[in-house]
């Protein structure tokens, strides 16, 4: 009635492998969690406004992903947001005058941090803070400025 045991066991093995592989694929490829499984170092940057930036957003240089946003908090003295970024260890030769800006992918896309490397000979290390930052562009502010300049004409 039932097929021989070894055939059943092989099929069950295939089934479980396929299921576990799908779980692994969902975890790594879909949620992107396995991405920064390598070692990272953390740098920080103060922005005036982070807009809609969220934890886990990508950190990119020229469109290439080099790390992810580890967390966002408020500096208790200056009341400005501090974004910590986990950069992969293999990109450990970023000059210390690298600038950071918060950009948007497309008109309605997710926000990410774009780094623009400077020309200094000294490299960034764990815990360093970026000096040159540019905040998120807020559509409301832009529209407000536009209307204001129209009034003045």
């Amino acid at each position, binding site marked *: 009635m*039932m097929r021989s*045991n070894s055939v*059943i*066991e092989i*099929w*069950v093995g*295939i*089934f*479980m492998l*396929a*299921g*576990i*592989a*799908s*779980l692994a*694929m*969902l*975890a790594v*490829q*879909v*949620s*992107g*969690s396995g*991405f920064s499984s390598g070692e990272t170092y953390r740098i920080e940057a103060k922005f005036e406004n982070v807009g809609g930036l969220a934890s*886990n*957003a*990508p950190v990119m240089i020229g469109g290439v*992903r080099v790390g992810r946003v580890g967390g966002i908090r408020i500096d208790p003295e200056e009341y400005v947001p501090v974004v910590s970024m986990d950069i992969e260890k293999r990109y450990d030769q970023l000059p210390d005058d690298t600038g950071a800006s918060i950009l948007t*992918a*497309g*008109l*309605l*896309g*997710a926000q*990410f941090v774009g780094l623009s490397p400077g020309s200094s000979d000294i490299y960034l290390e764990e815990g360093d803070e970026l000096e040159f930052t540019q905040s998120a562009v807020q559509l409301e502010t832009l529209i407000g400025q536009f209307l204001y300049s129209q009034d003045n004409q």
Partner: protein
Amino acid sequence: MDSIARLGRYGIDFTFRLGESVLFLVSAIRGAAASLSRWGLIIEQIYAVGVLTMLITIVSGLFVGMVIGLQGYYQLVNFSAESSLGLVVALSLVRELGPVLSALLFAGRAGSALTAEIGLMKATEQLAAMEMMAVDPVSRIIGPRFVAGIISMPLLAALFSAVGVLGGYLVGHGQFGIDQGVYWTSMQTGVDLVEDILNGVIKSVVFGVIVVWIALYEGYASAPTSEGISRATTRTVVWSSLSVLGSDYMLTGLMYGG
């Protein structure tokens, strides 16, 4: 007067079955614990409920993913937001469609078979014969099927979601030419491992328990006639589908409401 009595009988009957099914669940869990040492029986049942449901799950997952890809693209392109297609496909699959649809397929494909099998065992007095031989049918028959269902369900749901994401990729990249990096990156930034994927797995485990519980109980409590088996099989599919959809609403409220 007669119709009131019928309503009352229905109510008593319903409550009786509800209580009996909970008692059955308790003994099934005990049987499942007892059957853990008999791995061979469980493997046989994983073959019956899991492997044989794999093909329908993969095919449905592929088509569901492709349809979400199509529909999502047609809507997103109106807002030039087609770069979010990957996110739409992945979130809808991982959070809802993967666990729910694979549980519905599981109820139709494996749950009905479980009910019919156990109902027939009961009708042909195989269960009674086991008791005569001092073999506990709960730990020999019910337990392994219970464990196998709970193991298979999350694996099937994960398979469904993974194949569906690939189906969405086929449509998005192959048909509409969305860049593959954009498709996967939008997904990776928006999908969270704990909040989305782990919650989806928890959902599918709960659905697995619900479906095998109903299927096994209906088989075990069916009237030992051919008509009784056919009605039990129908009830399995109807009640487990309804329970899956209802509990999905509550689980979603609990998981994402806070």
